[in-house]
């Protein structure tokens, strides 16, 4: 689906179904340099099982126009406008990596718009090596190469793919190479508000899905986040940072269990 947000033409995947703002909505926010395609194997399930789905390409990424958001604060403000444009009052928000920082900042500022908050392969702060940011400024392709090296776990490095015949590392690299990776990484590095935002979450239901082989946002930091959020994390073993792509089924199962329990409680 295409929407106009702040005058820019924005693309959001809807999981293969027409978007219906009257259904409970799940919003999926991608990580640095990525796009909606990383969520392909989660969005379709939700769209076909009673939810509406929005997986936007953030401004300046892949199929979306506009300038990339220069900070997490800017992307959180953008998310608010995006939901307005889609006519969504409140949604379950799922964020991978940088996408979670945006979700967190958004939840701090708009608690009444967040039905639940899910963190995947992430932490309350994502410090980024300056050398990587500098490389990304020089060449997104070079930085993407480094990112997929660190970002994907041992299975993907051995060519494993949830979709027969495909190569997730090459797909991830191709997407990141063409997106504003330097801006994204700088936004992650600059964001200091995570811990405070976690404290401000109040009683928004939360979920943490972590990978034990994550080298981008090491699980230690993820476990701290889970503790601060007061949730017991789901740890997916044997996979790296790119959980939604590397371990789509395990990620979906954890998400399904959490979001449907929140829905059931709301209905009860």
């Amino acid at each position, binding site marked *: 689906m295409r929407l106009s947000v702040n005058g820019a033409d924005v693309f959001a995947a809807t999981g293969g179904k027409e978007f219906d703002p009257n259904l409970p909505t799940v919003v999926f926010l991608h990580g640095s340099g990525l796009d909606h395609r990383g969520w392909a194997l989660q969005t379709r399930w939700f769209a076909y099982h009673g939810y509406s789905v929005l997986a936007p390409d953030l401004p300046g990424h892949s199929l979306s126009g506009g300038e990339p958001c220069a900070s997490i604060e800017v992307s959180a403000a953008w998310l608010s406008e995006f939901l307005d444009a889609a006519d969504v009052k409140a949604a379950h928000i799922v964020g991978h990596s940088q996408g979670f920082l945006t979700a967190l900042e958004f939840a701090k500022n708009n608690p009444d718009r967040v039905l639940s908050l899910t963190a995947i392969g992430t932490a309350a702060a994502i410090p980024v090596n300056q050398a990587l940011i500098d490389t990304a400024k020089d060449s997104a392709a070079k930085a993407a190469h480094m990112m997929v090296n660190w970002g994907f776990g041992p299975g993907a490095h051995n060519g*494993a*793919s949830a979709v027969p*015949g*495909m*190569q997730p590392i*090459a797909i991830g690299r*191709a997407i990141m190479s063409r997106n504003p990776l330097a801006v994204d990484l700088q936004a992650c590095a600059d964001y200091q508000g995570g811990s405070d935002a976690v404290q401000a979450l109040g009683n928004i239901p939360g979920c943490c899905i972590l990978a034990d082989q994550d080298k981008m946002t090491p699980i230690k930091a993820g476990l701290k986040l889970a503790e601060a959020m007061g949730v017991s994390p789901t740890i997916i073993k044997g996979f790296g940072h790119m959980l939604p792509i590397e371990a*789509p089924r395990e990620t979906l199962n954890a998400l399904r269990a959490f979001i449907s329990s929140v829905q059931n409680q709301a209905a009860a």
Partner: protein
Amino acid sequence: MSNSSFYKPSTIALHTGYSPESDYGSRAVPIYQTTSFAFDDVSDAQSLFNVERGGHIYSRISNPTVAVLEQRLAALEGGSGAICTASGMSALYSTFTTLCSAGDHIVSSAQIYGSTATLLRHTLPRFDIQTDFIPINDAKALEAAIKPNTKLVFCESISNPGMEVSNLPEIARIANAKGIPVVVDATFSTPALCRPIEHGANIVVHSVTKWIGGHGTAIGGAIIDGGNFDWGNGRFPEMTEPFAPYHGMRFWEEFGPNCFAMKVRSEAMRDLGPAMAPQNAFLILQGVETLNLRMQKHVENTVALRDWLLEQDAVTWVNHPELESNASADVAKSLFPNGAGSMLCFGVTGGRAGGTAFVNAVQLSSHLANVGDSRTLVIHPGSTTHSRLDKDALEAAGISEDLIRVSVGLEDIKDIIGDFSKGLKAAARATS
């Protein structure tokens, strides 16, 4: 951050796409000799059909043994995904028909394999897909041949039997600037010698029947998606418009860098059905495991035989991509630093009669219509592989009557040379 955790080609050839944990610890890739795969329950079946999750349904569309080969070849080529097919020809047919509909146009090198030429010249025009053939390294000709309805530029990495090396970076630069993908049949080079995607190609096709399988035991093909083409550029509605059989899915939107491979899987494999048999995938995987080693030896023998042939009185000319007499020698040197394959052609004294005497006299070398076996193969194309082409087309494909084509095998080079000595003596006798 270093590159160290990316496996190198020899390691990829042995491991990628399979790990023993899942299959009783089986170290070799198991052969999943099955037509179909049981669903866990109805909702599992629904989720597979609805592409909510990846997996196998029916072996015409995908199969775990074949998928290992696909993932391994994609990784070796540096592509985003691969689809294996029943033959090299079905890989080409599936590629062309995934990209072209009636009314569309292809620009092809004039120097291509005989059956591919027939497919483009005779079969596809029946479905109103027309091809113009050009000297592929002529930049002006390429530029001029691309029309508004052109959907792809096609060439072979090394042509057969002209031994012309396609100048991939230049071809890709011209075609991509006009929003057209470049499809390369890289059968003659294999990823051990050249990775066309790194040189700008967008889709790589192989007859894995040849060097990749490498032992002359199974027919097969592969299509590798380079993941480096912008299918959203407005020229490819088949990638951007809703695809009715998949609930109106838009492939570019849904998959991006691997949308071409996914489209081949969803349309050609599903509706045309050129599936690779799992047993053949296994045989070809055996070949892939030693591809790098074999190609080194193929190249070494080829260079030695080439240099020996150049000194023989009964040999009128030798064509190999690295020889200065080959118009694409400079391109060969830059694209194939580790050797330009194991094919060479030469002329024997005595024209057609000499050629016939040569192939009749050799004993170790097999006279047959194949290339890329572990054994040395010889053929006289004018009377066999390219016999269906008329004289003009033969000349355009760079074939003369005295031409002997050799696919140099892995035998001891002394024995190959001994065998060729016999053939050349017979050719000389036939002339005198």
